[in-house]
């Protein structure tokens, strides 16, 4: 959860290009997340005195402890290190902790009061003097302190510096964990009396209230560190003389954690994430519309039908099917070979196909969906979107107006379409050549070899046999055989067989043609949307969806962040109850 919160803040800051909240900066003086997340109830908690120069921090520590554990100096550098007042059993633990936070800058003084084992009282350097290292050390300590005690003097309570620090700390901790004390109250009491003292308390409380935006002014302890017996000090001592119970500390931690959550939620609210999400959604809707209108309509209603209607495409299918078919036919394959060349010229003229009638899928797609043309179309669509929201510029790669992106996408469409067409062709061919029975093979043999044998040999022989007596025929037949291999007969027979084969070829081609036709446009699909379009349409629709991917991705990311912030808000609200 710790990482999740920090990670959430980081991601939001990244996506909105804004700075993280102050409490998440590297050395913000707020309780660290690791400390707040700690489940170790036996750990020592720190109560530290935060205050300006010479407000009497050390004096107050001494007064609270009841003995002179730290030196009171009103001039020079004053307290320079952390002075920790801990139970003797905890010395090692606190020392280890302090060594990590402020190596070498601490002194530990032990006591043996059994009911103060988990509490460590800290005297700290001042926060407002010319000694920067003091301010830094106190800031460091604040990262590990759950209960700061804000000590101000009658003279200094309106200073700007402590006020700024308090504001920063309050971003990551709740005022309930703070104690506000006003020292040297005895000076005023002696001079002005009890009534004015009350007025001063109210003034200070009102200043804190307005700064931290509290519902009610906080309790301010009016004390005099030098006179431990008067004013609120005896009471304060009683409060601090008993350590906080485990549930109380846990509660304080949770409250501080809630404050940090609340802080993140408020910060996120200031960034208007739902508004950004709505904008992205609107953008997505708009993108869908624009892509559908400017690209989808063009592609699906014009280009794809045109592509499939292209006679070159059909010729290609028929040719491929013919090639396969001819493998099964004896003899006609030769005709196919022979006819291919003379046929290619008229085919080329009729179909305007660039290459030998049967252009490759790629060439066909290129012809119908020229790269530059598609890229321009896409560019136009993106430009239209940009008009709606300039941030699209970031989503579609940093290139100016997405030029490279468009070219790449158009090329991708081409490849995908030609692949789909190739696949479609294979499927059709498979369908066409599926069945081949023995009876068909027999028929083919009869029609080719059988015909050749019949016309060249069997027919003349049988004619003679039927016409003449078999004796005459017996004489005739060798003659016929000899005649059959004479040049003129052979020629005329061959010519006839050739014509026969060509007729057969034409018939087969016609049939293939018809079957292709039927398969391509009437198989299963409606007349409005021929079956052949389905795979290509799918490709185009996929591609169109892919175009929106960057927006969709950003939208999903944003939605996820909004959801998380919302969850955080709910969790915070619940725990507040």
């Amino acid at each position, binding site marked *: 959860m710790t990482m999740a919160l920090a990670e959430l803040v980081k991601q939001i800051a990244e996506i909105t290009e804004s700075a993280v909240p102050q409490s998440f900066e590297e050395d913000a003086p707020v309780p660290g997340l690791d400390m707040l997340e700690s489940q170790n109830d036996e750990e020592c908690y720190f109560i530290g005195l935060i205050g300006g120069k010479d407000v009497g921090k050390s004096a107050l520590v001494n007064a609270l402890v009841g003995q002179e554990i730290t030196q009171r100096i009103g*001039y020079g550098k004053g307290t320079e290190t952390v002075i920790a007042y801990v139970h003797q059993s905890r010395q090692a633990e606190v020392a280890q902790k302090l060594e990590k936070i402020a190596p070498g800058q601490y002194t530990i003084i032990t006591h043996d009061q059994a009911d103060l084992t988990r509490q460590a009282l800290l005297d700290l350097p001042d926060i407002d003097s010319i000694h920067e290292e003091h301010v830094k050390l106190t800031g460091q300590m604040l990262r590990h302190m759950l209960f700061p005690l804000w000590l101000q*003097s*009658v003279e*200094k309570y309106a200073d700007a510096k402590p006020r700024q620090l308090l504001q920063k700390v309050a971003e990551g901790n709740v005022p309930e964990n703070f104690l506000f004390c006003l020292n040297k109250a005895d000076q005023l009491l002696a001079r002005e009396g009890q009534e004015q003292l009350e007025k001063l308390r109210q003034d200070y409380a009102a200043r804190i209230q307005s700064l931290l935006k509290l519902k009610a002014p906080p309790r301010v302890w009016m004390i005099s560190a030098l006179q431990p017996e008067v004013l609120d000090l005896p009471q304060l001592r009683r409060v601090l003389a008993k350590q906080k119970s485990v549930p109380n500390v846990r509660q304080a931690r949770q409250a501080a954690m809630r404050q940090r959550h609340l802080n993140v939620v408020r910060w996120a609210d200031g960034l208007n994430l739902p508004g950004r999400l709505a904008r992205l959604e609107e953008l997505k809707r708009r993108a869908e519309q624009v892509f559908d209108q400017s690209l989808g309509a063009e592609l699906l209603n014009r280009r794809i039908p045109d592509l499939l209607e292209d006679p070159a495409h059909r010729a290609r299918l028929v040719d491929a099917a013919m090639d396969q078919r001819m493998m099964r036919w004896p003899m006609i394959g030769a005709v196919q070979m022979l006819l291919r060349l003379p046929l290619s010229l008229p085919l080329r003229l009729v179909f305007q196909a660039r290459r030998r009638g049967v252009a490759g899928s790629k060439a066909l797609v290129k012809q119908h969906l020229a790269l530059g043309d598609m890229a321009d179309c896409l560019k136009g669509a993106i430009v239209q979107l940009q008009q709606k929201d300039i941030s699209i510029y970031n989503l579609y790669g940093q290139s100016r107006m997405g030029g490279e992106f468009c070219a790449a996408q158009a090329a991708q469409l081409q490849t995908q379409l030609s692949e789909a067409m190739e696949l479609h062709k294979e499927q059709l061919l498979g369908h066409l050549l599926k069945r081949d029975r023995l009876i068909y093979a027999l028929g083919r043999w009869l029609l080719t070899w059988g015909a050749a044998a019949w016309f060249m040999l069997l027919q003349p022989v049988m004619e003679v046999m039927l016409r003449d007596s078999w004796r005459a025929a017996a004489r005739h037949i060798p003659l016929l055989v000899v005649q059959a291999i004479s040049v003129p007969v052979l020629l005329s027979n061959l010519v006839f067989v050739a014509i026969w084969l060509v007729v057969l070829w034409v018939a087969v081609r016609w049939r293939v043609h018809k079957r292709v036709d039927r398969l391509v446009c009437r198989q299963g699909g409606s007349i409005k949307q021929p079956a052949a379009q389905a795979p290509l349409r799918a490709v185009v629709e996929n591609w169109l969806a892919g175009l929106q991917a960057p927006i969709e991705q950003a939208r999903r990311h944003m939605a996820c962040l909004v959801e998380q912030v919302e969850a955080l808000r709910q969790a915070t609200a619940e725990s507040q109850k």
Partner: protein
Amino acid sequence: MGLDIVHFLSSTVQLERVLALLGPSVAQDRLHAGVLAYHLGLVGKQHSLMVVLLGGTGAGKSTLLNRLMGREISATSFLRTFTTGAVAAKSPQQQVPEGFLAEEHQAIVDLPAQGEGGALLVATLDATPWPRLILVDTPDVDGDKPEHRSEADKAFRYADAVIFLVTPEKYQMTELTPYYRMAGNYALPALFVMNKAEQREMVEDYLGILEENGHKSPRLFAVARDDAGYAPPVEQSLKSMRQALEALEASADWENGLVQRAKHLVDRVKGHLKGLDDQRMAADRLSAKLQELVQPQQKMDVSPLLRDFKVQMRNNSVLYLTSATRIMDWGKSLAKKGRSLLLSQWRHPQPPASGGESDGSQAEILEPPLSKSLREQFIAAQNSMENVLLGDPYGKKWITQSELAYQATKLPVEDAKQIYQTQMDRLQQWMNQRRDATPRDTEILMKLLRLLPGGKKLIKWTEAAPWLMIVILVTHGAFFGHWDVPLIGGYYLFNFLAQRFSDEVKKRARQANSDIEADFVDLNLQQVRRIVQWINQQVPSHQMIEQLRRAVEDLSRIVYGQPENAL
């Protein structure tokens, strides 16, 4: 040093005037220039020394003033940040110099006064202990109210002498450090008082801090806290402070201090000037970059729209009717018909046009491609302009600063469509005019033909000319002997050239193209001009900067001696 005060003053005043024109971004500089002008104006004149009390909250500024004057003048309270404005105490003979604090001077009768932000309250007493001085109480320099701090800062800058007031709790405060240094630099007579002193060590520690900040032998006094058992030595007592006030007079180095102030001011303004120069350069650079974006990315071409009209016009032209092109076109159309007949068996039955689509999308689809392209190109141009602006750190800053004004500079996209519409209307008008008119070449030819004998008959037979030519060619040599080929060739060459040169439609299309392009460039230029205008609103003009440069140069010459080449 022989300082020309009059010149010094006039150039400072000039600088202040220019700074005033530059607006709130240089408000602090303007204040400093005003202070300098005030002090220069008083040089050589008899006037009361304005002694300002400066210190943190609760240091006892008001209390000290009252104690020194022996009267309740400035109201005191145990509540902090109580004094809200400067309060001066003078005798009837004294005058607060005009222009002090550049605020209204209000005379007050009811004492004590709490002060008033944005005004100097002047209490006139029957008599004051020091007839040459006017003591001024100020708000705090370290409290939680920023307006108090700026008020105190101003009072310090206008002061002729200053009394720094600290307490044991505050003598280490960082807020006063810059003022200590400035007092030293500006030759401002300074007294230091530690109020509520408790121990000798504190006073000595304070002395150390003052020495660190450039005051070699500060005149430090201590006022002990009422209940502390500490009595300051005689030379630090309140009594000697009164004497010190008695003897207080402007430093002999005062003019040097003023030069120091001017130097600081010059340095500050030069720093700003650099920033302004950078901004100005960024603005010029952006303007130049924007100007490059006015050319259309794609060529405009209306000729596809005129194709039908061209065919129509051609049928009126004698040149075409008599040319071989007509025969060729005829052949082509025949071939086309044959092809479509052949292809018709390959085609699927076309799906009937669906009428169910929404009107909006229909309209968008039906938008003529040229108009669409113009619109898209204009959007693209606007976007690239925005990209140029966003790509520049200053441009980005200006856009975030005045988003609304920037958005207002954008011309509506429909203007680009309008260009197309206008040109198309003109083209349509021209087509309507020309549709029934005889083409110019035909007119000329007809006139020529009429001059020939039997010209009228020739006119009737012109349409048969190509066919006759073919007959002549086929029966090569039958009519004109061997001359027929060069004759016919020559004729067709002439015909071809004449057609090319007299192609009105092409000419008109070319003109329309260039018109559209020019209009488009115009529109873009207009857009760029609007943006540039907006940019110029964000940055002071060259002239302004130059004026500021001259003013600061002038002052710099006076205080630094010679002009710097660096500027």
